[in-house]
């Protein structure tokens, strides 16, 4: 019995002592991870310009299956860097190369197709951005069914972008123009959002955009009689450049056309400078007719997750108040907020939202002496000037650089004409806007908190150019072998 008691006591003691009192052992056996960090050369900087506008319906305007280019567009570009600048018609019909490395190159040409501008054979360590390559195209259309000014900055292709703007109501046309400049085929999947939510119809996915071609699709075939559109394009295969070509006809009178460019990204505080109001009297006259309720200015917001927004419109004139309003957007829907009762002038729009939203600003232009009497422009949210920018300006007409400052302090922006070298410093007050008249390609200095858009006014028509800084990032990629 003594043996049993001793055994019990011994084992119990060892258990308790071992588990409670013994110190925990820590021993690490370390091996290196099988990984490496590799430098990745950035892809060649390539921009795609939309080319001439599309005319649908043929000469008669009734052949709905016929969508073709109309006229030519003027391409303006400037480049400065190393290697060569390759200007290439997307279809491959018109190519030219310009050696870079000396002084800045300025160029312009009339193009009859979407055109890519590519900086090839650049030095591996050379920077990218708008200071290296930028371009824009403008077209003043004056055919019977399509009149107005359409301008757009050349765009960096992407696999995924959102465009806010356009309408498919009677007399309105929204063509989705997708350009594939690469030698790889692409298919695009669309998601179309309206004031009632997402459109679910067949045919939205698998839209083919063959290599080195442009595909134009009428959005009315997917979403007819929709007053407010937004759409997301996701491509498989090659990256695509995309625009909506918006056109308006009131009665028999063509009342404007424009390219709508993609939003760069969803933002909770998008800023849309370039709200240049001219011809308010004509606009108001047109608005008096019920069927022309969309002839005025409007802010369009697409809120994928829904949003409560506060909109503040600020004038460049200190004595003009502008406007402030709020709105609620249901998740997945698109809402138009008409903007009226603003005098002629230069404004910027500041949006504050509780959720990331995509947006677009429809700016109307009235011109009693011109044909058309009305034109419009769709302004996309601007990028913050976190780096120096160069923007290519058409040589004709008036171009106004509209700067908006959403930062907590006023900011000074240096704007320099790249041809003449003349420069001007512009003070942009906090939550205010300022303008600079442009007469050629300019560089805009870096100014955190400041956003910029160029309004283009030619022959009483209006359009706008985004001030972007397209670049491909070289990077370090960590690869872990398994």
């Amino acid at each position: 019995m003594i043996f049993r008691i001793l055994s019990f006591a011994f084992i119990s003691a060892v258990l308790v002592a071992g588990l409670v009192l013994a110190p925990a052992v820590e021993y690490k056996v370390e091996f290196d991870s099988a990984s490496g960090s590799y430098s990745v050369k950035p892809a060649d900087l390539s921009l795609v310009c939309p080319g001439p506008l599309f005319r649908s319906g043929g000469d008669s305007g009734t052949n709905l299956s016929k969508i073709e280019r109309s006229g030519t567009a003027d391409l303006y570009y400037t480049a400065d860097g190393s290697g060569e600048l390759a200007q290439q018609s997307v279809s491959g019909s018109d190519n030219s190369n310009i050696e870079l490395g000396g002084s800045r190159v300025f160029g312009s040409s009339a193009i009859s197709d979407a055109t890519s501008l590519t900086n090839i054979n650049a030095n591996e360590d050379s920077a990218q951005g708008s200071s290296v390559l930028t371009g824009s195209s403008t077209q003043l259309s004056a055919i019977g069914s399509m009149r107005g000014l359409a301008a757009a900055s050349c765009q960096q292709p992407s696999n995924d972008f959102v465009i806010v703007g356009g309408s498919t109501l009677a007399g309105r046309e929204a063509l989705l123009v997708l350009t594939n400049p690469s030698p790889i085929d692409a298919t695009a999947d669309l998601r179309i959002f309206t004031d009632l939510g997402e459109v679910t119809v067949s045919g939205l996915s698998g839209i083919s955009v063959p290599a080195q071609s442009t595909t134009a699709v009428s959005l009315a075939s997917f979403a007819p009689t929709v007053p407010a559109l937004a759409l997301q394009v996701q491509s498989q295969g090659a990256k695509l450049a995309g625009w909506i070509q918006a056109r308006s006809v009131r009665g028999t009178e063509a009342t404007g056309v424009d390219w709508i460019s993609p939003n760069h990204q969803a933002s909770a505080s998008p800023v849309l400078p370039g709200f240049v109001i001219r011809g308010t009297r004509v606009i108001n006259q047109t608005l008096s007719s019920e069927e022309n309720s969309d002839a005025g200015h409007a802010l369009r917001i697409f809120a994928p997750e829904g949003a409560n927004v506060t909109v503040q419109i600020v004038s460049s004139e200190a004595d003009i108040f502008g406007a402030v309003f709020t709105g609620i957007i249901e998740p997945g829907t698109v809402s138009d907020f008409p903007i009226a009762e603003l005098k002629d002038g230069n404004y910027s729009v500041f949006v504050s939202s509780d959720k990331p939203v995509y947006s677009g600003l429809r700016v109307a232009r009235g011109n009693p002496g011109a044909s058309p009497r009305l034109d419009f422009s769709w302004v996309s949210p601007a990028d913050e000037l976190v780096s120096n920018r160069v923007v290519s300006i058409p040589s004709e007409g008036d171009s106004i650089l509209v700067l908006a400052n959403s930062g907590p302090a006023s900011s000074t922006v240096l704007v320099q004409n790249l041809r003449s070298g003349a420069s001007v410093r512009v003070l942009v007050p906090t939550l205010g806007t300022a303008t600079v008249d442009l007469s050629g390609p300019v560089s805009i200095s870096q100014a955190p908190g400041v956003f910029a858009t160029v309004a283009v006014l030619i022959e009483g028509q209006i359009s706008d150019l985004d001030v972007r800084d397209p670049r491909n990032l070289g990077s370090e990629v960590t690869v872990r072998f398994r």
Partner: protein
Amino acid sequence: MTVNVSAVVLSHDEPVSLTRVLDQLSKQTISPSRILVVDSSKTQAAPTSGFETLKLNHRTSFALSIEAAVKHLATDGYIWILHDDSAPDAQALEKLLKEIELSPSLAVVGPKQVDWDDPKLIKQMGLTLTRGGKLFSRVRGEFDQGQHDHLEDVMAVGTAGALVNLEKYRALGGFDPKAPPLAADVDFSIRARLSGGRVAIAPDSKIAHQMLSMNGKRSRSWLGGSPAQAIRHAEFYLALSYASFLGFVLGWLSLVPFAILNSFLLLVRKRAGSIPAELAAAATTFMQLGKILSSRARIRRTTSARLRSLASLRATRQEQKSSNQRAKDQEVSAQLLAAHARGDNDEITQSPNSGFLSSGAIWFALGLVALNVMWLPTNFAVSGSGVIPLSSNWLEVFGQAGSMSQSLGLGFVAAADPFSWVLAIVSAPLFFQPSLAITIALFLSSAIAFTGMFLLSGRITRSNPLRITAALTYALWPALTASVTDTRIAQVLAIILLPYLAHSIAKIADLGISNPGSFVSTWSQVGVSGILLALIAASSPVLGLTLIVLIVGLAIARTSKLMPLLFSTGLTLVWFIPVALERLNSVSPLAILMSPGAGSPSALESNWTLPFFGFGFDSLAFGLFVSVPVLVLALVALLTPGAKSALGLWVVAIAALAVAFVGAGVNFTFGQVTSVNLELNSVLALYGLAIIAAFLQLSAASQALRSIAISMVLVLGIAPAAFAMATNPPTVSYSDGRTVPSIIQADADSGMFVRTLKLGAGEDSVSAELIEGSGVKLEKLSTAFQIANSGLSDENPQYPVLGQLVANLVSANGADVLTPLEEFGISYILVFPADRDLQMALDSTRGLESIGETDFGQLWKVQSVTSEPKVSELDFAPTKILSLGVLVLYVLLALPTSSIRKRNGKESAIFVDAEENN
């Protein structure tokens, strides 16, 4: 007839038996004319007063002792040779002389040798050789009913009690002093035969022979080694002495290789104890070339006849067969008698319900299977966090076992995990669908564990309620249920095989209650336990190491079972040699203990919760409850009459717990990316097994305590654990075994070489994995790759190229990726999990054709790379051949013995008892 007979009594340190011999000698009905005691004793003086004595040096051999006696006697007629352990019957000499009278040509006549204590038991009646040259006694250990009294002419007779014609003796030059002790008498008889004399048995003449030499009761120097060695030495010596010249040369040269080969056969025939004798005898004989040549010369001097002329006197096959059968019968009888003596038969009658079926245990096993109904297999191959399918071709599974060439990554040279042997063995019965074996093993794991524990518990108690409770407890022990939940097949296999190993080891070490009626030899169990230990160690190296230490400890404690217990670790050691050599030389030795297979072992903390698997009072982990009452009751068992056994089991439990406690702090880190813990669930299963076995010692306690204990475990432990098991099925999926998209599988199945680059987006990195053929299968996973690939990426210049390729691919920067893709032979790129950024990058890469979404991720085909026929060959590295060879050896050793356990491999039954006693 009057003949002169001189008795020569050889005395060598056996005064007690010599007294009886001399006493019997004095009672002869016909007394010898002279009695000479030849005393070569070393330590004890022979009681030879009154007898003529010739004192010789204690090193004097048998042949020289006889020669000295003959010279001393200087007489004619016959000498009657007696040993100090061979006491003649009173009429022995008279009957021998009667034979002489009837046949004067007899050169040697021997008596019937009977048992020293039981004169009715015949020990020997002449000797002969088998056709294989082995010594053979036609009669051995039979009751004397006169059934062999017709025997007369034999090839040879033993010298104990032999009457030798001195004329013939001198003509033959006496016994050969060069011959080994046990060959001298046979050699003399053969030479007598070949020179025209007769050698016969006088059945009526009896001599009680103690056979001290053959029973190992004389000093080893007398025989020149163990009795078994002396017999083999004699056999080898005789074979070479009487062989033709060519046969002698070839025989001498092949002696050692033959002995080695024969050793393997002996091992297979469960006669491993004879191996040392075989090898030692062969080596000794090999070294005695001069002596053999001398003996051959002596034979040629006395006769020109050949041994084959005595073919008719050799043992026939039928005689050998009958002798083997008799030996087997005798062994069975002996074991039955031993079992009877132990009282086993009494227990059989007391506990008739000890079988798996008759006890009703099978219903509990089926019940455990029923608890798993929620994850009933719906296809061949199971996949989970710790298991992936095996290759569909069993040859590929087998090909990986013991391989030194790994196909992971860009391929590298390293030893495969021993676990690949486990997979090859486990899947072999279902070779047509290897993954199914894994699926079944995982699904039936609790029932298999239950059965094993039920078997093991039979060595501790005959109480069926206790056995079933213990078996249920082990089947629901958290170590197993947690491993099943994690689908960690390696752990599961180790845990479910553990009770079978414990049972086998217990049998070898003769621990616990032996199973009456089972005569499976120890060496069969060595084969079984060797394989089980290897399977367990390969599945869980930490548990394997713990078990080896415990088995060695047990072997030291049980020296009588030292060799079998140590031998049971042999296969494990052989399997681990390649891995051990690699890791001891290049990386941390602890890396040997890394858990094989898929998934990462769960972490445990080194504190008081360890024996409860991290059990906390705030936890609702019902499955862990069982560990509490069993621990308490196992401690209580220390206070019962079974305390001694319980204490031993607690030592095992605490050892396992200590290993787990220390192991919980060991961590393998691979850069900042991953870290892996030591796998300790299986060690905690050993802890569980030990305390459950300690709990079973309550069988020696009162009925009331037993009832309370069973009730406690059932209510507090088993019921909640069963509920948890039934309601928390593991997350598994069943498939047809593919791990790559169909298009890749089709290429691989058609014998094409396919290489796939698998990419995955991490938080701040991209993972890249090169997959060959039909994908990474369970058997191809390698801890060597895990710990060596950092070195590989530094050493193999192709890895930076691959890394740059991956970086360019995911960046879609327009850099040339097709050239390196073609150089690496990458036909497909797979992205898993699906990632939009990676998809966009690959979509925009020229030369890649998007195939789309598959079950295994997004897939692209590299258009310019076409698959080429694959040249596949099995990798038969020396380490693989060694591992396989030893595995086969253990399998043969473990095979059921009823058919093999015949003494057909040991034709000579002459001294079987002596051999087995060694």
